[in-house]
């Protein structure tokens, strides 16, 4: 049987018919929805009581006061019954009221002599007696946007992101002094570093997924970020990496364009990382001790190294390096501010997804380039020295990451 293609030269349908064909299904779906909501549910007798779900979205610590932002994320209305702090009933005020429609939020406020650095458990018992709990590992005064706190979190972002990336860039003269035969090694090392960062970004999103209410569909929000960044950077990468648009000829992955691409990818990763750090501090999940900050500094210095490999063979002036450093490390500061003052879990998930997608896109561009030996980079990775370089990049990242877990 051979497939037959029918050649029909039908006259073009009228505009009205096209509109009808396009809107008809929508109208039918709308009608069905209306019918289902108005009478269909009762007709189907799905009458069991839906399970109440209340999300404690944010806990704000102020002097002698704790404020809880809650939202009804269940399928039906619910009422807020009692508030327990560390399993003890506590008087609270609530605005706008106890009765919450679907997706409606409320703010609870309690007078409480909480102590800096101590753990707390907040439980809301809703009308049908179900418990909705959120743990705070380390109670910390919630930062309010002030010049001082702005400076504080800006400095934090600079310490963990901006400064390390610049320090890493200082390796350029060293890399240039190395024999030319090692060029592919540095390229492989960079790929190893980037692969680690990509997976690391996803891992950070997994940590947030644990506390995001189901209705945000957090996993797919991350996926949206990954897919969106990967394919939208495709075009940008093609433009920046320059010659790739040529017909099939492999380009040497080098030059300022490619370095910019790597810096953007790393910058997006650092934006997510800054968000996570600022938020973790605000949410009382991490104590930002000096050890942790030093750990981030060492860890992120390798990011500067990753930006350099396309520049080893070519020329780069201080202005170029400054741009690369700002693009790669600067977003950490923005992230830290956003995380500390206006934290939103879903937004963080999207940004972490974007960071991961951007980095994987950079890896793709690097891997499609031409290695020093003339073969594609992806092929060159099978050479022992290049494989060692990739592994070394991954291992360096892993080893320094041990300093920041905890």
């Amino acid at each position: 049987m051979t497939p037959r293609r029918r050649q029909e030269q039908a006259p073009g349908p009228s505009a009205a018919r096209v509109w009808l064909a396009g809107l008809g299904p929508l109208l039918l779906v709308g009608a069905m929805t209306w019918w289902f909501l108005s009478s269909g549910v009762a007709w189907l007798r799905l009458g069991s009581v839906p399970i109440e779900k209340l999300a404690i979205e944010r806990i704000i610590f102020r002097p002698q006061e704790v404020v809880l932002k809650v939202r009804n994320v269940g399928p039906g209305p619910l009422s807020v019954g009692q508030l327990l702090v560390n399993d003890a009933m506590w008087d609270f005020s609530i605005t706008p009221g106890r009765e919450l429609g679907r997706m409606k939020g409320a703010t609870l406020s309690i007078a409480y002599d909480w102590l800096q650095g101590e753990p707390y458990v907040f439980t809301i018992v809703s009308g049908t007696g179900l418990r909705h709990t959120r743990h705070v590992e380390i109670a910390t005064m919630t930062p309010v946007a002030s010049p001082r706190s702005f400076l504080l979190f800006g400095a934090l972002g600079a310490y963990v992101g901006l400064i390390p990336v610049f320090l890493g860039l200082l390796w350029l003269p060293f890399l240039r002094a190395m024999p030319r035969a090692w060029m592919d090694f540095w390229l492989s090392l960079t790929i190893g570093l980037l692969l680690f960062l990509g997976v690391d970004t996803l891992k950070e999103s997994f940590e947030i997924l644990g506390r995001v209410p189901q209705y945000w569909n957090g996993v797919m929000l991350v996926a949206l970020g990954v897919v969106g960044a990967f394919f939208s950077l495709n075009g940008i990468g093609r433009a920046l990496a320059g010659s790739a648009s040529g017909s099939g000829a492999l380009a040497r992955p080098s030059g300022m364009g490619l370095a910019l691409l790597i810096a953007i990818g790393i910058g997006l990763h650092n934006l997510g990382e800054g968000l996570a750090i600022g938020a973790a501090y605000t949410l009382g999940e991490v104590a930002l001790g000096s050890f942790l900050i030093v750990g981030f500094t060492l860890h992120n210095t390798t990011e500067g190294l990753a930006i350099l490999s396309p520049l080893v063979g070519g020329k780069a002036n201080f202005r170029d390096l400054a741009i690369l450093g700002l693009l790669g490390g600067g977003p950490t500061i923005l992230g830290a501010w956003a995380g500390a003052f206006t934290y939103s879990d879903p937004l963080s998930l999207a940004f972490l997804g974007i960071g991961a997608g951007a980095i994987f896109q950079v890896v793709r561009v690097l891997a499609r380039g031409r290695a020093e030996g003339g073969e594609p980079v992806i092929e060159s990775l099978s050479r022992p020295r290049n494989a060692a370089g990739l592994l070394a990049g991954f291992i360096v990242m892993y080893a320094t990451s041990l300093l920041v877990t905890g």
Partner: protein
Amino acid sequence: MPSRRILGVGLLGAAALAALLVGPARITAQRPQGEPPALTINPLARVARDHAIRTLTEFDYGKATDLRDGTSLREYWIEAKHVEVEVAPGVRFPAWTFNGAIPGPTIRCTEGDSIRIYFTNHGTMPHSMHFHGIHRAGMDGVFEQVAPGQTFIYEFRAEPFGLHVYHCHTMPVKMHIARGLFGVFLVDPKQPRPKAREMVMVMNGFDTDLNGEDNEFYTVNGYANVFFRDYPIPVKAGELQRVYLVNMTEFDPVNSMHTHAAFFHVYPTGTSLTPSLYTDTITMGQGERAILEFRYPYPGRYLFHAHQNEFAELGWLGQFDVKP
């Protein structure tokens, strides 16, 4: 029907035996005319509050008929009902109850009285009434499960005197008690105790999320903090106070009571007229109970609460308002 008189304990025993042989009696017991109606189902906080306060001082002596030997026949009408109650402000609980609220009515009588309970199950599953006391096997409320819609008549003599309980004994018993099927069975000695201001306090826990593992709230008489927030109990300084304290808590092995600024004499299970302990804190296991007697010499407000302060801060907290 209620006009019928049964004379003598022998007949009562025969009726009990008959009930045992026949199994759950298939009759529908009716409350006699003129009795106050059973508590109606009402989820409002007011109902829970009023019930807790009423349980403190309300005793059900039943419909009494004097018998020739000087004792009384006392008839009680109890219904198992599944209702929604409020157990803490804003928190409802799918309760299984005797007569529509938790705890069930305090059944009070004198030692030697003939007791007849018309128990009708209006629930959706079998229930029973198991009385603590001394009685024949067929009156024990364990093997004679009462199916929904059926009535069973429990008949026994009230003995020994003391502070007892009754509760459902349908498996899983833990769940049937935790859902609220319990009440106080108070048997006075023939020689009455000294005159006193008397109060019934039934301690329990509510597993509102129904996870079958622990309690979300702890109450006295079914409503969290009711004697702290809604109704500090007014008492007179110097007057003898007598608390009938019963522990019907499930999941937690013990419950306790501590009185501030007053020491009490303890009559464990109320089966002796001689106190065995003088203290201000008593800890009791599940199903345990004791009569406490004390006086407040000085006017003012005094807390009483579980000395497991975890329970106190989950609803088991009250205060006495001692008036001069």
